[in-house]
């Protein structure tokens, strides 16, 4: 190990549409070390990685590679300087052979250069052998298993002479034997002098593979420690350690009848299994878990997008089959999806058409749309939700993110649902709009709506929910009452192996 770090990032800040993803974070990586990067969902890990790989540019701060300042880093430039990233989902060309994939990653030269196929094969063979991969350079990438594809990516990175390797959750879908092989390869890379940034939610891996660990929280660097000096409990404390502010207007509402009940419900195609859950009128049930834990998949199952194929779903005590969103809407279930810009509202349609889209039958008389009533209803929701728009005829595209979210919410309130599923209802919107949506959720619960809220924000989960269900691997692994839930307990369950 040398004193001069391989990478030194200082004071990095980055905001997306007014939301601060990184807030003066710093990070240091030495040659010949594996440096783990941990933090909750939304702590800023991905943003940091995307800045280092040149995918996005920081608003503020500096990055030094070998003591040299990198300004206006592009992905091409980052690659040229030996920075490579491997993601959970391998970024390969599925139709090409392993050798071609490796060549595309590491050959230099113009588009008109001549290609030496046998040299490509030879080099790919050597690289694959070096990392202990047991497939041929001629194998078509899409025929390889997930761990093999990851090894292919690593071979490509080594072939490009990567000195700084970023691994984002590389073990998430690997078996024990594959993990062992991967760690051996990482160890060899480290011994060869490369620096590895290792992102993982599997905290128990870190003592095995990492030399140091840095904890990010709310876009800031909280601590960097040598791995032997820190234990799991301390890590979790550092990850969540924040005050729960009193901004959540939690109201005490006596829960009513059971609106939605799942008994051992699951969906094989989306990986949700054995979910037993009860949601009562007037209750807000928070669904916590890491990204990929199956929370959105559960919501999509309840809403009929990927229909349940095992277990039982009951609405107001009656067993039902939900095969399509239309079925769900008929049963009084509403789902405000996560990616509102793409799925929550239809940008090309005016606010009024967006408001009535899920309840068109309601607004039709003898088959004809009642445009007057549509206008009135839209105006009503614009006033009630405080939507800032020029008029109800303005296209949704002209609204800000927070206001689009309110339009998406208005659309579902117009269906008069008994069960409202909110998927990351305040993600990426400004503080003011966020508080308004929280207040509104309280109002709706008070009116007797049953609300299932998916959120990756711990304060939101703990602040808004009456009960909290924690998901991992497509299952519910724990259920807390509001009083007994703490950030540590929720995260501990979400992370546990």
């Amino acid at each position, binding site marked *: 190990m040398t004193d001069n770090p391989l990478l030194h990032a200082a004071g990095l800040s980055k905001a997306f549409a*007014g939301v601060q993803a990184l807030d003066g974070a710093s990070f240091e990586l030495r040659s010949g070390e594996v440096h783990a990067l941990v933090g909750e969902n939304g702590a800023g890990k991905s943003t940091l990685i995307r800045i280092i790989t040149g995918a996005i540019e920081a608003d503020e701060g500096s990055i030094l590679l070998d003591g040299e300042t990198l300004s206006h880093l592009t992905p091409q430039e980052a690659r040229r300087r030996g920075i490579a990233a491997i993601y959970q989902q391998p970024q390969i060309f599925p139709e090409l052979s392993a050798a071609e994939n490796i060549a595309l990653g590491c050959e230099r030269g113009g588009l008109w250069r001549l290609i030496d196929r046998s040299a490509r094969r030879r080099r790919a063979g050597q690289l694959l052998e070096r990392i202990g991969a047991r497939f041929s350079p001629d194998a078509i990438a899409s025929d390889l298993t997930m761990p093999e594809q990851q090894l292919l990516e690593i071979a490509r990175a080594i072939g490009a002479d990567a000195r700084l390797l970023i691994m984002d959750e590389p073990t998430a879908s690997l078996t024990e034997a594959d993990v062992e092989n991967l760690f051996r390869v990482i160890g060899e890379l480290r011994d060869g002098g490369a620096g590895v940034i290792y992102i993982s939610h599997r905290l128990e891996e870190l003592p095995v593979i990492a030399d140091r660990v840095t904890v990010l929280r709310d876009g800031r660097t909280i601590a960097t420690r040598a791995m032997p000096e820190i234990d799991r409990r301390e890590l979790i404390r550092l990850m969540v350690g924040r005050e729960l502010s009193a901004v959540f207007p939690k109201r005490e509402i006596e829960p009513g009848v059971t609106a939605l009940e799942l008994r051992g419900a699951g969906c094989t195609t989306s990986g949700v299994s054995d979910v037993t859950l009860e949601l009562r009128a007037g209750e807000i049930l928070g669904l916590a878990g890491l990204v990929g834990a199956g929370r959105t998949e559960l919501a999509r199952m309840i809403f009929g997008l990927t229909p349940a194929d095992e277990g039982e779903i009951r609405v107001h005590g009656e067993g039902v089959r939900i095969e399509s969103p239309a079925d769900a809407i008929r049963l009084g279930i509403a789902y405000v999806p996560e990616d509102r810009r793409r799925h929550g509202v239809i*940008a*090309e349609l005016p606010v009024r058409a967006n408001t009535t889209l899920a309840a068109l*039958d309601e607004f039709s008389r003898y088959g004809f*749309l009642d445009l007057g009533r549509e206008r009135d209803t839209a105006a009503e929701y614009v006033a009630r939700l405080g939507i800032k728009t020029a008029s109800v005829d303005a296209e949704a*595209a*002209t609204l800000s993110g927070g206001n689009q979210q309110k339009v998406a919410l208005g659309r579902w309130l117009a269906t008069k649902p008994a069960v409202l599923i909110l998927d990351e209802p305040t993600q990426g919107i400004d503080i003011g709009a966020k508080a308004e949506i929280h207040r509104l959720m309280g109002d709706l619960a008070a009116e007797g709506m049953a609300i299932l809220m998916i959120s990756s924000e711990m304060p939101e989960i703990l602040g808004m929910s009456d009960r909290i269900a924690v998901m991992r691997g497509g299952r519910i692994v724990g259920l807390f009452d509001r009083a007994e839930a703490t950030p540590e307990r929720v995260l501990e369950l979400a992370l546990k192996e």
Partner: protein
Amino acid sequence: MNRYRREIAAAAALAALLATVALIAPSFFSPANARDLALNNAPALIVATGMTFVILTGQIDISVGSQFAVASITAGVLAKAGLPMPAVAAAVVICGCAMGAVNGVLVARWRIPSIVATLAMMVVLRDALRWATEGAWVQNLPRNFQWFGLGQTAGGFIIVLAALLIFAASIFLLGRVAAGRAVYAVGASSEAARLAGIDPRRVTFGVFVWMGALTALAAFVNAARFAEVPGNAGVGLELKAIAAVVVGGTAITGGRGTLAGTLAGAALLAVIGPALAFLGVNPYWEKALQGAIILAALLSEIALGRMQRHAQFASR
């Protein structure tokens, strides 16, 4: 107002063209010429109306020319067999729905890209027809076929009236019926529409059936203009219809556009040829000018898209 910029642009171009003609060659506006123009273009307007639905859904149908030919021959054969004209009309529309349903199944259920599916249908229908008729025309039609047996004036009036009625009904369908709203929603974002409880497959299927029905109706009223039915009707009709829709400001990617724009686009493309003749311009320029108009419409769509994105960024 902003939302209808493209439609207004097409209408303005039409107005400018008509004004020029009015100044230089006022005889263009004779009743006889106007009637001819309306009659000649009524069938194409009906097809362009259906095409507006298809393109709004984010699809395309290039088999309408072949569907038109099949429907024309069907009309001729059935009339010759002695069916009364209303029965012929009904049978032809059913035939059109069936052809549209095949397209609909290919695109909506089997998820074949519409340009490929309808290209196949275009070739299959055209060549099946050639094989069946051996290129022969349907001749010796009963007297009640041409002009519905009512003479040119009344028959012509019925044809233009039919086109306008279909057009008006379509405006109503698109603007005032839930299904029309669903067409816009699916065209703008199929996944977002699905999340709102709309079944995009059903909408897409329905739109192709509707396209087939309108094409067949257009073929029926077109055939009634003549005493014989040719075996090769409707060649190039798909391009004419798509051009009218695009010039009228409907986004080729779906989700945005109006039938009023299609009317302006169809009128502009219909008028330009005869107008050039009245202005004494070499008729060889007609196609080139039509192409230039289509290109201008597409370029303005790209430019407007850019401007809108900038406006969105600015408002954030």
